[in-house]
């Protein structure tokens, strides 16, 4: 199969859906002729014109409010918030508004097709306010779906599924993955929301991860294999709703688990994963579930410090080995 990048896969999903359905439209800061801060929407303005791909003022609340109003009217907006770090200035829309409006009006609004795209993660030396992994806030919100793809294949398939979902979806893309490549079918396919994926089968220990840490975790699994440890790697893909079943199935087989996330130890979804496994699989666990995560500090600018702050394949290997011994 042809290989394209994660960024191209996302663009392909957007283009596909925009061609099919003229209710789908994109807007946000610099998404137009500029093609987006990370180039994801490059070419779409040229292809679909200024009615379908619109630049906005720097007004994140107005971006999401406009999107929500348009979705209420049956359009299918795909607004972009440049960095997930900026969701803090339009947080109400992702928590009190979009996820609640249908419930609070007793279902008078039937569909609410709203996919908010944003970007996450570190390693670009952008310091404390442009490097965070903040998905853990959003997985606490009933009524909101949260998706974080780790591969180009999943990025395209999950985004297409999100665009058809008729619910508010927060679609978080990993900056560090944009340039990574992988096989992606040309045509249409959906990766259903809410299903985790076993990215490597194994029998000795389950490594649970998502988004940018998948690559590091697979590398760790490779290293562990050469040390005789056969790790299973589960990619969550959708963080809310969490796929409790796939997690349980894997851990009930391996009896051990490490959760790996780029978010800091006190953030992210590690705690929710641990809670899920304690709930479903306590009797199957041979050892405590461990977490590999960023340190509980602000992400520092200085490159050597950022590198120690964020998690690494090495730390995954260490954590897994400690559990196996």
């Amino acid at each position, binding site marked *: 199969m042809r290989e394209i990048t994660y960024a191209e896969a996302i663009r392909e999903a957007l283009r596909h859906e925009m061609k099919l359905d003229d209710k789908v439209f994109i807007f946000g800061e610099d998404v137009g002729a500029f093609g987006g801060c990370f180039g994801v929407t490059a070419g779409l303005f040229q292809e679909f014109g200024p*009615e379908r791909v*619109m630049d*906005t*003022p720097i*007004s994140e*609340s*107005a971006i*999401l*409010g*406009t*999107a*929500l*109003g*348009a*979705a*209420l*009217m*049956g*359009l299918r*907006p795909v607004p972009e918030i440049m960095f997930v770090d900026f969701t803090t200035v339009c947080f*109400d*829309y992702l928590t*009190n*508004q979009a996820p609640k409006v*249908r*419930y*609070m*009006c*007793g*279902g*008078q*609004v*039937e*569909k*609410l097709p709203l996919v908010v795209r944003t970007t996450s993660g570190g390693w670009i030396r952008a310091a404390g306010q442009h490097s965070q992994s903040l998905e853990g806030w959003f997985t606490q919100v*009933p*009524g909101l779906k949260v998706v974080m793809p780790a591969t180009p294949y999943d990025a395209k398939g999950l985004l297409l599924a999100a665009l058809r*979902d*008729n*619910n508010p979806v927060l679609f978080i893309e990993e900056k560090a993955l944009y340039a990574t490549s992988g096989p992606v079918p040309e045509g249409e396919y959906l990766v259903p929301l809410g299903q985790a994926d076993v990215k490597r089968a194994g029998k000795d220990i389950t490594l649970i991860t998502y988004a940018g840490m998948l690559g590091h975790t697979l590398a760790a699994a490779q290293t562990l294999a050469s040390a005789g440890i056969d790790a299973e790697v589960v990619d969550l893909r959708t963080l809310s709703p969490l796929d409790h079943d796939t997690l349980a199935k894997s851990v009930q087989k391996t009896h051990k688990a490490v959760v790996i996330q780029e978010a800091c130890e006190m953030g992210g979804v590690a705690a929710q994963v641990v809670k899920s496994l304690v709930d479903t699989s306590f009797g199957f666990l041979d050892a405590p579930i461990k977490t590999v995560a960023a340190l509980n500090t602000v992400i520092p600018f200085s490159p050597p410090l950022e590198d120690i702050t964020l998690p690494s394949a090495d730390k995954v290997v260490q954590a897994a080995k400690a559990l196996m011994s």
Partner: protein
Amino acid sequence: MMELPKEKLLSMYKTMTAIRGFEESLAEAVTGGTLPGFVHLGVGQEAVHVGVCTALRETDWISSTHRDHGMILARGADIKRMRAEIFGKVTGYCKGKGGSMHLAVYDKRATGCNGILGPSQTINNGVALALKREGKGNISAVVFGDGAAHRGEFHEALNFAACWKLPALAICVNNHYAISVCFDDACSVEDIAARAAGYGIPGLVADGNDVMAVYEAVSQTAKAIREGKGPALLELKTSRWRGHFEGDPQPYRTAEQLEADKKKDPIARFGLQLIAQGIATEADLAALKAQADKELQEAIEFSDKSDYPGPEELFTDLFYTERRAG
């Protein structure tokens, strides 16, 4: 006033009395301890509700505030289902899940109130954007208070709407108070409408106690918006007669102030106009009020007899589910 047919004018009067009756019956229910939660009553602001809704088309959209049961009633909502919603009954418009603070009636294109001050102003842009694409000359109006005009959303929404030339009408109902805080202490200009200058859009002030003045201001502003001239900001000056919420002892204003406000009673004023212009007699007006009272009684009975939603409603409507045909 002659611009509107007699029946319309009489129906406006009736709606104003119906709104007041509706609100006063809620005040009684609070006193009687039968109404759950807290309600913000719009007594004194009926000219705003009826003036705005008379000027808008049925095909326009409108969102309003925590003080605007009246706006939704004036939009033509069923008073029975309104009452039931406020009492948390399954027969309410939102199946009892929203209550007073989230009352919305989508089939009347009234998206109702938002519990968070601000967001309705930006959401209005999205509705207006859809209407612009539809291209039928419909507009979307958002109604908010003088207090809510200080939230960041006011700014982001108006600039955005002006840049995109959206058919959006921002209506600020200035009743001079945000809970206890007097407008003069929370705002550095006399008129919220003055802020329109920052966006290059029209900014108008009208007397919010005069239903015909409201009607005319909204009609004219809306006309320009329908013609594609972009958004506008309209400020309606009025006052609220009751506390911010029922039970508010109002230490922040004097009885004299309140009495002076009440002298501007929009219903009495409109009634006098109708009589002076020979459109109605006192007896006509009394009959309209009696009719409204009767409908209110029926609504109270309807609501009282209705059930609360059952546990099967706990998770419905949270996520989209395909509806069965038929």
